[in-house]
């Protein structure tokens, strides 16, 4: 056993010396390799954290949301529906919600407007998301005028900026009073955009939803878990788009790795011949090259992953954030909670480290199995 360990130590020593002997080539390869891992890890870490962030934020939202459908499309919900909803067994609270969208041509961005009854806002007061405040350069006390359905401008006073911690969901959000909302959009009286329900036992949410569908034909109950699934799907889709783009980068790297790692130089072939001639087995040479590939690729992997981790969680996630966060012009600006998914790390290891090691070994194996007599001929 000690001889076996000593042998591996010698092989590693020799491998390190070999890597240093070709430092320009190996450093170039290491940089490209680390960059590739950095790009892939950034996407993985960012999208995974966004999903986790969304899930955390949605955790405290009501379990069931009810919409009214007319001809398969979302329509305003009559206030008369609230009472039958309250009477459904298992429901502890029902609240009608008013919300909508406003397209601001000045900044070519959509805002989400929502009535917040619990905030006790004055008729013309609004609370706005941090991204909206940034893009319109608004601060507390400023006035934002929006045109009503009659064309008259409605001056709204910024009473506060929403907490940056929830910016993933509130980037484009504008909270206002019911009076302000009804003045702005003029919906029919006694109607709401939709309703949210609190359920006593969360595990019964699906049963409650089934009861709602039966009690109120034309209603569409939506569970919080379904919203979470939609977020997941959206981030998966965005992640997929980025990965397809990065696929080209991966391919380019594979070609480079094959060329650098697989294409043995005359000097390397000579070296293999010398080692075999002086008593190294084919297996020793393969093990040495295996160490070489592993050291190079693992160093690149760790460097790339660490850099991506820093970039995503501490460096402001500038890379890929526009694609993965979405929100057209209003990009949320918030700090993600650091987290590492072991399965993702292993998957990334499998797609970056393994192909490189395989690409290295095949030609070495071909060279190492040849008779070493060529070395005698200089």
């Amino acid at each position, binding site marked *: 056993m000690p001889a076996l360990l000593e042998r591996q130590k010698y092989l590693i020593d*020799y491998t390190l010396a070999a890597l240093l*002997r070709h430092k320009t080539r190996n450093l170039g390869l290491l940089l490209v390799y680390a960059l590739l891992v950095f790009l892939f890890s950034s996407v993985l870490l960012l999208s995974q954290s966004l999903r986790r962030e969304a899930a955390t934020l949605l955790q405290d939202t009501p379990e069931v949301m009810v919409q009214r459908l007319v001809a398969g499309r979302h329509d305003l919900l009559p206030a008369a529906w609230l009472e039958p909803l309250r009477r459904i067994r298992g429901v502890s609270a029902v609240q009608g919600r008013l919300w909508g969208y406003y397209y601001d041509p000045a900044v070519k961005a959509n805002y989400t407007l929502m009535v917040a009854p619990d905030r006790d806002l004055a008729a013309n007061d609004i609370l706005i998301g941090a991204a909206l405040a940034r893009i319109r350069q608004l601060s507390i006390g400023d006035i934002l005028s929006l045109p009503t359905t009659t064309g008259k401008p409605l001056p709204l006073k910024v009473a506060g900026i929403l907490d940056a911690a929830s910016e993933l969901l509130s980037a484009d959000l504008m909270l206002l009073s019911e009076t302000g909302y009804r003045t702005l959009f003029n919906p029919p009286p006694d109607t709401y955009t939709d309703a949210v329900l609190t359920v006593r036992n969360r595990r019964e949410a699906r049963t409650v939803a089934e009861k709602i569908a039966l009690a109120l034909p034309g209603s569409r109950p939506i569970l919080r878990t379904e919203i979470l699934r939609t977020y997941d799907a959206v981030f998966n889709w965005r992640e997929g788009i980025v990965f397809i783009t990065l696929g080209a980068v991966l391919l380019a790297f594979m070609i480079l790795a094959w060329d650098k790692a697989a294409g043995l130089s005359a000097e390397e072939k000579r070296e293999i011949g010398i080692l075999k001639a002086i*008593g190294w*087995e*084919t297996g*020793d040479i393969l093990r040495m090259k295996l160490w070489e590939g592993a050291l190079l690729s693992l160093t690149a992997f760790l460097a790339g992953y660490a850099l991506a981790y820093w970039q995503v969680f501490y460096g402001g996630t500038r890379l890929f954030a526009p694609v993965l966060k979405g929100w057209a012009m209003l990009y949320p600006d918030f700090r993600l909670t650091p987290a590492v998914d072991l399965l993702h790390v292993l998957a990334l290891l499998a797609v970056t480290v393994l192909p490189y090691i395989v690409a290295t070994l095949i030609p070495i194996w071909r060279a190492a199995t040849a008779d*070493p*007599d060529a*070395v*005698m001929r200089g």
Partner: protein
Amino acid sequence: MIELTEVSKVFNQGRPNECRALRGISLRLECGGITVFKGPSGSGKTTLLTLVGCLARPTAGRITLDGQLLSNLPERFLTEVRRHTFGFVFQQFNLIRGLTVLENVMLPAYPLGRPHHQLRAAAQTLLDRFGIGGKAGSRIEWLSGGEAQRTALARALINDPAMVIADEPTANLDSALSREVLALLGELALQGRTVLISSHDPLVFAADHVKRLIELRDGQMVGDGSC
């Protein structure tokens, strides 16, 4: 004892550039002393040494070492025999650039997993014995031809082989250095090792301790004499 029976070696067999390097060589090499294979370039000296040293296999014929058939051994066992029985000194030295003299000498012993301090001490002892102990930490690129040859000789001996195979050991050296190297090889023969040399240098033929001269031409043995 090494015995060759009707050994032939053909390179690029079946191709337009086919080359018959050795033709039906039968030979018995006793242990100890120096045996020199002489002959002009292309006579098959180096090829014969590669076959004896298990660096390649014959196309036809049998090679045995102390009765053990070598010519059909699997690669792994052949390496084992090569590692423990033969030490090689190549014409171009074939030292690994970028490594130090000491590292080059230690290299053949790496796969054996000897404790590092022991191996290092053995390598240093060999270098001291050949008068280049002070160069242990120097890189190979900085050595003179004579120093490189001594390093190659030390490397050949690190696994304490019974036989040393030297291919044209004086080809890249001046007369004074050639004599020094031949003296060192003579010392090895005196210690009881078998030294096989290929050369066309008259200095080698006339060296002390050379007990046998085998002449090759066009891949065939044309002379075999004792000194």
